């Protein structure tokens, strides 16, 4: 041990106060209390519905989905988005892309990405097929191909147009 005080995590946990800030002295006391009590009550209703209407043998499957959902977001999607943002930043600086063009690139990728996420169940439905010929009649892969083509065109225009106009300005 060095000379530092031996405050471990457990000791720190034990020393935790009930509240970091006094909940009684802050603003919106009544509104916060109503929201808190109402929120807990609504959650309890949800729990009762779950206990009454969903068979207990389904709980493990639901628990897996709840845990995997948050892991997929926090450990896969969110870090990927952070990495993509940093990558775009580096590319922007290295390739001397204007701030506006970089924003268009980011926007186009985000919008097309969101549409792709919304299209995933459609792709699954196309692949699995249905006994009902009026559901998932759209070829979603084609829709997404068109959407990504539009995104790529938007990106290309954002990257190329400023360069062309800069070159034209230099010639003059």
């Amino acid at each position, binding site marked *: 041990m060095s000379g530092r005080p031996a405050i471990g995590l457990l000791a720190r946990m034990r020393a935790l106060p009930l509240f970091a800030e006094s909940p009684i002295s802050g603003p919106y006391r009544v509104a916060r209390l109503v929201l808190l009590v109402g*929120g807990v009550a609504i959650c309890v209703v949800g729990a009762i519905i779950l206990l009454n209407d969903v068979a207990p043998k*389904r709980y493990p499957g639901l628990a897996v989905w709840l845990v995997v*959902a948050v892991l997929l977001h926090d450990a896969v999607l969110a870090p990927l988005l952070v990495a993509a943002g940093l990558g775009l930043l580096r590319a922007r600086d290295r390739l001397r892309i204007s701030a506006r063009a970089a924003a268009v690139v980011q926007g186009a990728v985000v919008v097309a990405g969101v549409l792709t996420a919304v299209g995933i169940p459609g792709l699954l439905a196309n692949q699995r097929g249905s006994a009902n010929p009026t559901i998932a009649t759209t070829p979603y892969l084609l829709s997404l191909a068109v959407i990504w083509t539009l995104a790529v065109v938007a990106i290309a225009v954002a990257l190329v147009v400023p360069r062309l106009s800069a070159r034209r300005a230099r010639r003059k």
Partner: protein
Amino acid sequence: MADLTTRVSDRLEPVFARLRRTASDPVKSTRTAVVIGRLLGAAFTICFLTGVFSHILQDYPYWITAPRPVSIYRITQGAHVISGIASIPLLLAKLWTVFPRLFEWPPFRSVAGILERLSIAVLITASLVEVAIGLLNIFQVYVFPFPFRQTHFALGWVVFGSLAIHIAVKLPLIARYWRSGPRDRPQAGTVISRRGFVGVVGVSVGAVTLTTAGQTIDALKPFDVLAPRKQNIGPQGLPVNKTAMQAGVIAQAKSPAWELEVVVDGVSHHLDLDALRALPQTTADLPIACVEGWSQSAQWRGVRMRDLLEAVGAPAASDLRVRSLQRSGVTSRMEMPAAYSADPLTLVALELNGDVLDIDHGYPARIIAPGRPGALQTKWLATIEVVR
């Protein structure tokens, strides 16, 4: 022990600090969280209220005294699915904004802080699963190991409740950042500014709505490239939720021996198709509006329920129990309170859009009533029993 936890804690602290720094961006400010958060809160509130309304229509039909406007369910359930899909980009944007806060150190500053982070974990995971299974359900892609209807309803309450708790905790902060203040830096951001980010989120919400809402909003029909349904696609130009093949009713429904049995005070009255056609025929323009969020208006023709009831000596305003030829499943039987049976627009429909009902739309006879979910518009009628 204390020594070990100190060492673990000392190791974790710089790791968390680094993760937090890496994930941070000036655009991920409290103001951004408030701007996106209130849009998401609005979308979730619409989802919750319309969802509860849909369950009331189905589980407590006697609470409904006047089924007007006739497209009430078309509007509320359309709004449910539209705002649910719109909440996907909003939820992702909100989580993107607050992601650095996952690495706060120390992770808890108080006992209440532990409970708060727990409630946020519940809010996040329940929201993610709720929108995911909602989206899968409208495509009838059942890849999850639990029943949709019950789980989606229960999680809806959990999401809305934990959202209220979250707002309770953050209310002073929300109020402080509700309007753009002197501390606000709308142009800050490494790649994109806040204004740009909110713009991208807005375009994303617009794009998912434009490409899916055409399954229920007539004007957006041409842009429907990602929705599970397309208006006008299906037998007689109308989609169906369950085909006669899926319901296993083809032989019985096509049988010339088919008769509608109407039971009044324990006495059965049998009406074949000719007998039904001999009764006064009424035409009604009513939407078929599915719980899955698609809807379309159609022209129905058949016998008014009140005329049918009076023909067999029952009062027009009767509580009914209706059964389909379909043996099992939620659509095989239905309760119809007197408020619907007495309604001049409630029909035992024999025709759709000018032709005899297609087998997939419920031939030989089906129910069509104003303002009810499609699941209650019973197809392939077998019996109508007057309960009261």
